[in-house]
């Protein structure tokens, strides 16, 4: 620790510990099955997770003992190593359940994509905090975009589109640092057009776009973005709407179409593709106010929810701890995220702030997509719930991600 240390942010650390502990309790329950064993039975997921947690504490100590400047200085190296480890998967990777996302070391596997997140966050922070970088310039925007896109492009073919989706999180630091809100507007408009097209078809969407366009065309005549721009976007939107139909029907695979259709309520299929979501909702819904009690969940014990100790761990919380428990977990995440925003905002060093926002963005996207999926308001995308889901690489990746920021925050007074 340097002499300028402001101390670690114990609120964040406390929430982190609370989430990890509660997460383990739920993994225990979800992977217990019908046989109760020792808490540290290494043949069972809950035993392994206990070991992972132990190793995380060890990692935290290392992360916190390194100089804060180290992360800034070596961010490029870490980033490049991370890209190499992702690229190396094409040669040395081990395929588990269809995805070549792992390096195998004996009985343990390591998933480099989990570590690529903080590496990318460091690299982006480094680039944006460079004195020559101006995010308002298109060329710099493109460079930043490349930094973000490289790992994502390496992850997509594993295939692991879920993990790649996480890189959308970097929009938040970019926006915070001055990226035009137009990108957000354009992005959200695309999503809106996409979903509305799936729901209502391109004809209605086009009609809607024309109506809105006409309204803006006559109302905002003196203001920018001006009539030409409105016309331009209207045409783009209508074009997008029609191409969405084409993409959806011809580019997407059936399983992708199914996932969308189920969330949008266009298809009901509780046995096939909709099984996961359906069972997850049953498990959560059966929890009631207070839940069935730890290790007493009938759906959890019956292993009705697939992947329950990993991506669907939140359904165990819902079933065994009820509304009270699951709402508490939501609140803990919200509190942690808001706390981290405060920490990020108090950084005078831009590198620290960008990194902070990246951490928040990554955690938030995971939180949003994972829980949204488990409670049935988001399509099925396989990404873990930070600090909660079973998995060593994930836990370590998130731990390093968070604690680098806590380290940086403790160093804020050195500027």
């Amino acid at each position, binding site marked *: 620790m340097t002499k300028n240390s402001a101390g670690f942010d114990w609120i964040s650390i406390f929430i982190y510990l609370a989430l990890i502990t509660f997460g383990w309790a739920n993994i225990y329950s979800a992977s217990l099955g019908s046989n109760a064993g020792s808490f540290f039975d290494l043949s069972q997921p809950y035993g392994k997770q206990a070991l992972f947690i132990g190793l995380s504490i060890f990692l935290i100590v290392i992360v916190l003992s390194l100089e804060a400047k180290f992360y800034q200085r070596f961010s490029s190296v870490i980033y490049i190593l991370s890209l190499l480890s992702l690229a190396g998967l094409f040669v040395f990777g081990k395929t588990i359940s269809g995805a070549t996302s792992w390096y195998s070391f004996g009985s343990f596997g390591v998933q480099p994509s989990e570590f690529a997140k903080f590496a990318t966050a460091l690299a982006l922070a480094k680039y944006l905090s460079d004195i020559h970088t101006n995010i308002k310039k298109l060329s710099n925007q493109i460079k930043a975009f490349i930094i973000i896109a490289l790992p994502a492009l390496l992850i997509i073919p594993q295939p692991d589109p879920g993990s790649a989706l996480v890189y959308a999180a970097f929009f938040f630091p970019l926006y915070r640092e001055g990226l035009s809100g137009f990108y957000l507007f354009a992005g959200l408009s695309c999503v809106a057009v996409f979903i509305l097209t799936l729901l209502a078809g391109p004809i209605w969407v086009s009609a809607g776009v024309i109506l809105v366009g006409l309204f803006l065309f006559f109302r905002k005549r003196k203001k920018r973005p001006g009539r030409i721009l409105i016309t331009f976007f209207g045409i783009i939107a209508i074009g997008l709407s029609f191409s969405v139909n084409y993409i959806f029907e011809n580019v997407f695979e059936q399983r992708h179409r199914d996932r969308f259709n189920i969330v949008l309520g266009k298809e009901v299929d509780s046995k096939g593709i909709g099984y996961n979501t359906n069972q997850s909702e049953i498990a959560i819904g059966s929890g009631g106010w207070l839940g069935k009690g730890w290790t007493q969940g009938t759906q959890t014990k019956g292993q009705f929810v697939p992947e329950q100790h990993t991506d669907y761990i939140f359904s165990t919380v819902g079933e065994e701890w009820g509304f009270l428990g699951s709402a508490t977990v*939501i609140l803990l995440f919200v509190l942690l995220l808001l706390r981290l925003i405060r920490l990020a905002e108090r950084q005078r060093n831009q590198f620290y702030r960008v990194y902070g926002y990246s951490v928040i963005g990554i955690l938030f996207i995971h939180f949003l997509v994972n829980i949204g999926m488990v409670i049935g308001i988001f399509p099925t995308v396989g990404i873990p719930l930070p600090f909660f889901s079973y998995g060593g690489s994930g836990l370590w990746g998130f731990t390093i991600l968070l604690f680098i920021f806590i380290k940086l925050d403790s160093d804020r007074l050195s500027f």
Partner: protein
Amino acid sequence: MRKILLYITILTTGLIFIGRLFYLQIVDTSLAIRSQDNAIKVVYDYPQRGYIYDRDGKLMVSNQPSYDVMVIPRNLKPFDTTEFCGILNLSREDLEKKLDKARIYSPMLPSVVIPQLTKSEYAILQEKMRKYEGFYIQKRSLRDYQVDHSANVLGYIAEVNQKIINENPYYISGDLIGRAGVESYYEELLRGVKGVKHIQKDRFNRDIGPYKNGIYDTLPEKGKDISLTVDAELQAYGTKLMKNKRGGIVAIEPESGEILTLITAPTYDPAKLVGRKRSPNFTELYYDTIARPLYDRGLLAEYPPGSPFKTLNALIGLQEGVVDTNDKFSCNHGYAYGSRGRKLGCHAHKSPLDMIPGIAQSCNAYFANVYRRVIEKYPTSQEGMDVWNSHLKSFGLGDYLGSDLSTGRPGKIPDSEYYNRIYDYPTYNWYATATISNAIGQGEVLMTPIQLANMAATIGNKGWYYTPHILKEIDGKPIKEEKYTTKNHTTIDPRHFDPVVEGMHEVYKSGTASTLRIPGVEIAGKTGTAENFAKIDGKRVQLTDHSIFVAFAPVDNPKIAIAVFVENGYWGSRYAGRMASLMIEKYLKGTITRTDMESWILSHSLEEEYAKPISGEPFIINQ
């Protein structure tokens, strides 16, 4: 804006999530119900049904295991169908058909493939069962009858129907329930209480252990063994005597009200209504509308009682003080009454007679006089009729006896209201003579055989009876039910019974039953011959009389009171009297000394008589 965008996004997300959770966990209760449906399996543990013994501890009904081959189509794995079909003696097409049917019913729920394996099939199959994944053997318990008679007493068990399931939440589809007889009346004693197990299942529908360590589980409670009051040996003997005849035999132990015998004929072997054969056999019995084997004549058949009823009129006459045992009435081949020379006929005998020979000779004129005096003692016929009626009611007549038998009939004892309605009172009045047939047990009087037997027991007890019942012991302990252990007293003073008993004894010694003598046994009895009519093609046709005999023995300390009713058996001592006499000897002495009488009964059939009215040909009765 740049600083608060993320803030707002996070807060909004948190709120939406909590709202969604609130909906799923609190508002939408259907999810919790579906969780119960797919995660918890409820399994019932059926206890052994109680055994049924006779009064001497002889086993009448026990249980036998039965094995059904079940299948859960979803769990089927490819198997050696040739071997499987070979063991079960089944063609491959049959097996395919059964499996298809099971699949259509439900891929996840068990269906029966082969019901009720034989023991040898079971032995072979059990060894190889592990090779046939998806199949399993379900053990069930069926009744095993140790006797081939008493089907009417025992009843049978069958699967519950939807109506029972709706009315009684204890039963679920596939449960067995007692139908008819003791199985029905004492269903709750015999069945015990089934246990329940809640089993946690996984997503493959596999059992993974008890739910919540079994805190909601209950153990089954074994059904109670019961002993009946019937004597199995007597039942078997009576059934044998009744072969090729129609009618009923009811015997009661007067000092306890215990039903010693309850026989109906024709009957069937109770084993016919077990298991695989139950349904077709039941249909066959049910649709035999001529012999009506399912109709318990001992309990349900309401016949005019005939002459045995005269004993009651004698008792009422004495109680009302309208007649003395020494009062004599003359009889000139009958009793003339009314202004237009109407006459109640009688057979040839000495005249005039007082009470004891009156009973012994069964003189119609004597009882017509007694009856008339009873009715005419009161200012109006109505009052007289109601007094007469209430005396009879005290014998348990004209109403359900209240026994622990699952079925019964009230019979009929008319009262003033009944005749007022018939004669359109007060427009027209009616007098004792209009109802004179009641004096000799014809007319409007109807009784069931069990009421007749109970009447005999009451006379034997000289004025009281216990409600007849069929249950003697529960798990070896005598029943204590108040209804069956309190005496019902009649309205007749005990002293009035002596002359009537003497009269009935005289019947046996010198009267209409003198051919039925058992060496060393003194019987008090009364023969009866009841005219009967049937409607054939809409015409009222007289058929051969019913043969009736009512008795108790020994006279001074009655151990058995019996009523025998043989349809179209002609006069009382011809069939019913012989049978009653043989039954009494069998019960009191254990052996039959009069083998000629026994073989006469065994060799005589009334089937020809029963065939007459349905033959469509003209026929002669009472020959």
